């Protein structure tokens, strides 16, 4: 519960419901009866953080232990921050209202690179020094995890350790170690040394980086007993791993306010631009029975009226029909909708559309990603124009009149012809609508195309690529706009400077920590929010720190270069990535994992097992 001082400022800020805590199903324990207090921080606003599935899972996992109390912390919005700073109210956790300095372990989930300044801001709001070397005592230990932990080097100096891969088990092992170390009051150094022995734990201070004259990395050296390579953790069996039976139900409206269920981890597709598609391998599916039972429990405990079946590619789930039958047997009476995000055009079936129509008719979104077949082959999207047109035809005859299409600009090997191809493809979808003899009367069609800018990411076949410069991206955006000839197609695109900064940080190294700290000290926070993004300050930060951002974003790397994340092992063989990168330049596709195993190597993390392989092959 928040204290009196906080209560006084709540009437002065926007949406105070974000700061009160006490939501339904939030967990309150007696702090004198636990051995460890864990503050789980999401470095963005409450509305964003409370929509995130990972925090719900790990909150529940941690609190399932009697000796641990895990609480939630979000970044206060700028108006709240101002009130807190002016009254010296430190950042507090929502369940107890206690300041972060009361906690033994403070964890940040690293979802996107542009949230890094918020991490520094939250630590500072709590009165905690932002640099790890300036924090002496054993506690609070500052830890990080999540997708961006695959290259945490730009923020390595701010953290004590990172957890790589699935967090459900490794978090508990860290709790055990910290509880033990607290009892005998070991030093932080000793704790970190022992933490580094846990599989999946990366302690950046135990690695030394040496650079070449040309600023590339010469050597990454593990100190003392730290392993040369830190291997990510995976959960082997999704059916038996802990899944929450309750979600905290926010009072205020958040972005995704519904039951979310993760039906599979990993992705069989191998799109060469997609980091998540490689980071979350190998494929592990949950059984339809488990999903159905857990969904029902969640609906009952929350009162939500929508279930979202989430994964990187939901229509690739092997038992989707069985699952939908099971769910629909009770959701219709219970007035619960089912949302299926992340559908693909190449397996969008008549049957699937029927299911979608039984529940609320939501928008249809597909992601061809590139405008021409050549480029789609180069990025291994494995979607053909015919498949897209078939899907469009089905959707239109099923009564849909609006379709959304996602694309990327700036993909490796892209030409202006490929850019114009985006407009052509959208035009063909429009034409498909008018070919339909039973199109709804008096209604036009609306095709929205949303184009983002490609950012090369670690652990993808494109990790060596140069990102398009901002000028190139803007000129491609303009070319696309001038290629669209009808008002039935609307185009939206991202700011290129945000993508540029994301590109720098995504493949950055430890030398960027000064830049991030400088930017934060000069007012940068909530960088992923257009209104708050201070690009000029970032440019100033690069200049002051004497760092050329283009070195990180727009430089093509040699396959032999030591990359800042080379000491982190996500199970993907580098030779596999190199091979995929070479195939991209030959416009050669790689069939998806269910057709033929591409040999990425991640199944070795799971004792050779991967759910993409046919049962007969195993």
């Amino acid at each position: 519960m928040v204290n009196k001082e906080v209560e006084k400022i709540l009437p002065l800020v926007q949406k105070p419901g974000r700061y009160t805590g006490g939501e339904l199903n939030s967990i309150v324990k007696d702090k004198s009866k636990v051995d460890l207090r864990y503050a789980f921080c999401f470095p963005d606003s409450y509305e964003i953080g409370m929509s995130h599935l990972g925090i719900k899972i790990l909150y529940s996992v941690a609190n399932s232990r009697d000796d641990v109390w895990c609480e939630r912390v979000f970044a206060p919005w700028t108006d709240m921050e101002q009130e807190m700073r002016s009254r010296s109210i430190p950042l507090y956790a929502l369940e107890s209202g206690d300041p972060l300095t009361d906690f033994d372990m403070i964890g940040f989930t690293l979802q996107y690179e542009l949230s890094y300044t918020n991490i520094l801001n939250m630590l500072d709001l709590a009165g905690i020094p932002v640099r790890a070397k300036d924090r002496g005592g054993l506690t609070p230990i500052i830890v990080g995890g999540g997708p961006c932990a695959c290259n945490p080097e730009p923020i390595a100096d701010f953290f004590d350790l990172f957890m790589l891969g699935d967090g459900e088990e490794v978090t508990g092992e860290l709790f055990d170690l910290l509880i033990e170390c607290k009892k005998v009051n070991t030093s932080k150094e000793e704790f970190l040394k022992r933490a580094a022995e846990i599989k999946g734990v990366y302690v950046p201070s135990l690695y030394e980086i040496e650079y070449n004259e040309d600023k590339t990395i010469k050597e990454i050296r593990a100190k003392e007993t730290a392993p040369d390579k830190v291997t990510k953790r995976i959960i082997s069996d999704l059916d038996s791993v802990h899944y929450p039976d309750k979600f905290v139900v926010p009072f205020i409206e958040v972005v995704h306010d519904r039951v979310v269920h993760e039906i599979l981890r990993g992705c069989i597709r191998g799109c060469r631009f997609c980091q998540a598609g490689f980071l979350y391998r190998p494929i592990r599916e949950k059984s339809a029975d488990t999903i159905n039972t857990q969904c029902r429990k969640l609906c009952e405990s929350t009162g939500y009226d929508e279930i979202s079946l989430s994964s990187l590619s939901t229509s690739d789930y092997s038992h989707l029909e069985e699952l939908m039958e099971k769910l629909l047997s009770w959701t219709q009476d219970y007035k619960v909708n089912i949302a299926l995000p992340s559908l693909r055009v190449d397996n969008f079936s008549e049957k699937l559309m029927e299911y979608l129509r039984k529940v609320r008719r939501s928008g249809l979104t597909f992601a061809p990603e590139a405008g021409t077949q050549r480029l789609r082959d180069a990025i291994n999207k494995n979607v053909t124009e015919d498949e897209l047109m078939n899907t469009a035809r089905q959707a239109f005859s099923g009564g849909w009149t609006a379709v959304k299409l996602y694309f990327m600009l700036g993909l490796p090997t892209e030409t202006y012809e490929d850019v114009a191809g985006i407009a052509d493809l959208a035009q063909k979808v429009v034409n498909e609508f008018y070919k339909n003899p039973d199109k709804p009367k008096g209604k036009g069609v609306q095709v929205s195309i949303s184009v983002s800018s490609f950012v090369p990411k670690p652990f993808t076949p494109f990790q060596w690529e140069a990102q398009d410069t901002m000028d190139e991206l803007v000129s491609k955006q303009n070319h696309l706009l001038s290629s669209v000839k009808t008002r039935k197609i609307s185009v939206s695109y991202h700011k290129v400077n945000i993508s540029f900064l994301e590109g720098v940080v995504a493949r950055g190294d430890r030398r960027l920590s000064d830049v991030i700290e400088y930017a934060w000290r000069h007012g940068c926070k909530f960088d992923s929010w257009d209104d708050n993004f201070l690009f000029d300050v970032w440019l100033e930060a690069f200049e002051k720190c004497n760092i050329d951002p283009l070195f990180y974003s727009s430089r093509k790397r040699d396959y032999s270069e030591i990359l800042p994340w080379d000491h982190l092992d996500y199970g993907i063989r580098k030779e596999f990535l190199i091979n995929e990168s070479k195939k991209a330049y030959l416009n050669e596709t790689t069939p998806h994992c269910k057709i033929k195993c591409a040999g990425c190597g991640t199944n070795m993390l799971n004792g050779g097992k991967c759910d993409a392989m046919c049962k007969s092959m195993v």
Partner: protein
Amino acid sequence: MRCVRVWFKKMGMSRFVSHLDLMRAMTRALRRADVPLWYTEGFNPHPYITFALPLSLGMESLCESMDMRIEGDSTNEEIFRMLKDNMPPGIEIVKVADPISDPKKISYGDFDIFFDCVDNGDDIVKLINEILSSDELIVQKLGKKGRHKVLKDINIIEFIKKYSVSSFNGRVKLNVVLPAGSATNINPSLLADEIQKRIGTNANYTLIRKQLLTENMDLFE
């Protein structure tokens, strides 16, 4: 299908739940409680729920009511038992009853305004009495002029139906009856803000709505 009126208190931190958010929170609570709700029969079925008079963000209340339509033959007592353990924290069900008054007839609200003060409670009581016994106290109210929202000056004294002031335990309580409802609505925070300014302290205040009254000062029930 029949209509029931659910009476509840909205206290403590739940006062920071806005009207729209309360709608959502209540709908979910009703679903959790497995209340036999009647759903609209349109394309997007939803339960039919209305609130008598929205409560301002930040104000507590002892007299909130929500009308809803239910199916089947559950008694009011049964509905009460289903609901009482399924409410979000801070919201307490008081009773479930048949609706008597028409929410359109709500004309007045009875409010308590508590000012935190230190040791000079009696002085503040005197001061508030002086302020309220004068003929004029101009405050700015957000009103409408055509489609635009404008600040209007109003003399809030004219709207005060009755009031009383008392002090106890380092707090001053101002009880006041002001117009509330769809015709004229005067938010008591307008009065509280002005008094806070006049008594020249940063004494925080809290507001609580105690009763809603009809035109003849009968209880809305």
